[in-house]
């Protein structure tokens, strides 16, 4: 009877240790998994933002710096803005900035000839 009681308490102790270790490992793994999901999502947003910035830069060049014809891709997850440095210059230089929730993620400097 005493032996049986000792065995039961040993089993219980093992279960407690196993559950504790599993909880710690699972918490770490879930944290890393969520981090990797965030990283993948960030990469997707950055890739889309880069494509949108390239589109804007190429259309800016193609339309000789005409801001009304610049292609600004709409996306809820980032903001795209075009700022022209000197509109009267022969070569019109513009800073195309992409920002996500107020934080700037990339800036492309594109130039267009007034008379190509």
């Amino acid at each position, binding site marked *: 009877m005493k032996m049986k009681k000792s065995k039961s308490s040993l*089993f219980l102790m093992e279960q407690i240790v196993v559950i504790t270790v599993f909880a710690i490992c*699972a918490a770490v*793994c879930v944290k890393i998994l969520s*981090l990797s999901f965030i990283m993948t999502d960030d*990469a997707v947003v*950055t890739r889309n933002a880069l494509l949108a910035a390239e589109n804007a830069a190429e259309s800016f060049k193609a339309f000789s710096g005409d801001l009304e014809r610049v292609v600004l891709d709409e996306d809820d997850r980032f903001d795209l803005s075009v700022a022209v440095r000197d509109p009267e210059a022969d*070569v019109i230089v513009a800073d195309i900035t992409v920002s996500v929730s107020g934080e700037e993620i*990339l800036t492309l400097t594109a130039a267009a000839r007034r008379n190509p």
Partner: protein
Amino acid sequence: MRGGIGTASVVLVFTVLCLSIFTVTALVPAMLDRRMIEAEVEFVTSYYSADTLAEQIFSEIISFGFAAETPENVMGVEINSYWDWDLFAEVVYFTIPITETQLLYTSFGIFEDSHKIFAWQMVNASEWEADGRLNVWQGNDFFSSY
């Protein structure tokens, strides 16, 4: 009690191993993806900076006109030029570094009353060389070496 003492520990080891593998297989591609997009952003930004500089240099040289002597250096970039009798034009060319291995090569001709761009493209900074370091069979008799 069918599962004795130690069974739970074995199951725990297996479960933690599986969890670790799943976590690593999710994390590694995410990190690689992030590194790749960072490199892509850096390259595209460098390309457009080089392109902007090339546009400014091109515009400045064109503004000098046909009769003017082409400057040797504009905005810190070395300018090369020669007279082409066949085209009857001054051919100007220069390169701007984009990365350590790639350059933006620009070439254009200044004619009497116009100009024409011949090339505006990325080129490699150095010549490609075949890797000949592998000690491969050179075509001599196979058995003579034994």
